[in-house]
């Protein structure tokens, strides 16, 4: 990635020339990945693991600079978990040329419709209806989608969460509760969620019980 940095600076300097607009977009797609992938992805995965294993805890990740409108945390989640063997669905504003280019260069995940995706990325509204995502099969519940949900902020205030990974109860500002209650009712089937906002990430596996308080 370090090779892409000088060309990014170069195209920035020449950005007045309209013919350079395309190469600027391209250099944006070429930059913003992990500089030291093995170590940065290891550190990021530990945060994602802690987030998923302790639903509702908000963790901080770093290392990715994806193009707008993706958050840092969403970019990190993609870099850590997705590769050419996972089908990715981009929903709503996330489905734009800069993001597609960035995904194509850094991750290589084939883009797919929601029904067949292993991972889906977008704001909660854009992901609706969430019932179209894969929930796994009764004999293989692991063959289910993971949703990376972009949020404006993450705070430990809102619906109450209980279940595996939570000692007594915790709280998280989920976009709604009905969808997650319906998802929990499918257990052991269901989709799993990662919520991202800025450089923060939180997890909500299908095993968590969600209640309005």
């Amino acid at each position, binding site marked *: 990635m370090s090779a892409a940095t000088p060309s990014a600076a170069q195209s920035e300097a020449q950005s007045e020339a309209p013919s350079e607009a395309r190469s600027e977009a391209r250099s944006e797609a070429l930059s913003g990945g992990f500089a030291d*992938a*093995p*170590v940065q*992805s*290891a*550190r990021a*995965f*530990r945060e*994602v*693991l*802690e987030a*998923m*294993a*302790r639903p509702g805890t908000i963790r901080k990740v770093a290392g990715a600079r994806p193009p707008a409108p993706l958050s840092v945390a969403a970019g990190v989640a993609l870099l*850590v*978990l*997705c*590769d050419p*063997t*996972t089908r990715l669905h981009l929903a709503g504003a996330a489905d734009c040329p800069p993001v597609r280019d960035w995904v194509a260069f850094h991750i290589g995940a084939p883009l797919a419709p929601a029904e067949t995706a292993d991972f889906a990325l977008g704001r909660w509204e854009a992901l609706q209806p969430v019932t179209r995502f894969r929930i796994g099969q*009764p*004999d*293989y*519940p*692991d063959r*289910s989608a*993971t949703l990376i949900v972009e949020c404006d902020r993450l705070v430990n205030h809102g619906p109450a969460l209980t*279940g*595996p*990974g*939570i*000692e007594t109860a915790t709280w998280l500002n989920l976009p709604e509760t009905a969808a997650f209650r319906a998802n929990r009712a499918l*257990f*052991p089937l269901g989709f*799993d969620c990662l919520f991202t906002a800025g450089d923060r990430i939180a997890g909500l*596996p*299908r*095993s968590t019980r969600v209640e309005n308080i």
Partner: protein
Amino acid sequence: MTDQAYNFAYLDEQTKRMIRRAILKGIAVPGYQVPFASREMPMPYGWGTGGVQVTAACLVPEDRLKVIDQGADDTTNAVSIRRFFQRTAGVATTEATTEATVIQTRHRIPETPLKAGQILVYQVPIPEPLRFLEPRETETRKMHELEEYGLMHVKLYEDIARHGQIATSYAYPVKVEGRYVMDPSPIPKFDNPKLSGNPAIQLFGAGREQRIYALPPWTEVVSLDFDDHPFETSKAPHDCDLCGAQDSYLDEVITDDQGGRMFVCSDTDFCAGRRAKGHAGRLGAGQKSSKTFANSFEGIWPGTEGAR
């Protein structure tokens, strides 16, 4: 002294992503065995290839790694895996349970309670608890799908009919969050209560069988039993001969050919820690490690000063 010829933590990034996805799905469905594309590792199957792959996918450079084999830090398997990650990941290592952030274990849970922020990685030989009752994978998968665990209860019942009690003493089956029956790996059933409500993340890796499963923190894990034959832990009815602990799991060590024997903590760090604090058992003071003592020439040979 990281070996620069290898990627960080030995495995390539594509493999680690695949393992990491399996770990996250395992966390999301506690007790369910997630298939994964297990790689050949530079050690034979049965030496912890599953655990090593899970550890490699989780390690960060800041980690402090502890590896135990039947509770001991100083046996061949534990030493070689610890050195493997010292070389390929450059991580610090420790023998102290309280200092470790990642603990890879073969067949024991440390006596010292684990805490949040720690990860316990189990090496699993046969992940399927129903495998010895039903050899076909297609059938056991269907049984898990339908939550059809009658066969396991029949097995436990037959234990009682034959032996008057549930004779399973290790790899004692458990039910996770009221859904999946899970093999806790061949830990003694003495350790089963530590599975439940544990603040650490527990990950299980079976390399040859290509399965990963997990217990998130604070997960409810119940050992299978009957109302009239409740689950009971068991250990040798002795105190540790070196540190005097009454509540730790013990190894029996033959010390001579005259019927001499001693019982020592299987958890060497726990035993050493107690002796450092001044506790002493029947054979008392002066030895650095219970396993060192048991394996030492002086320990085995009768009549020398070391045997006492």
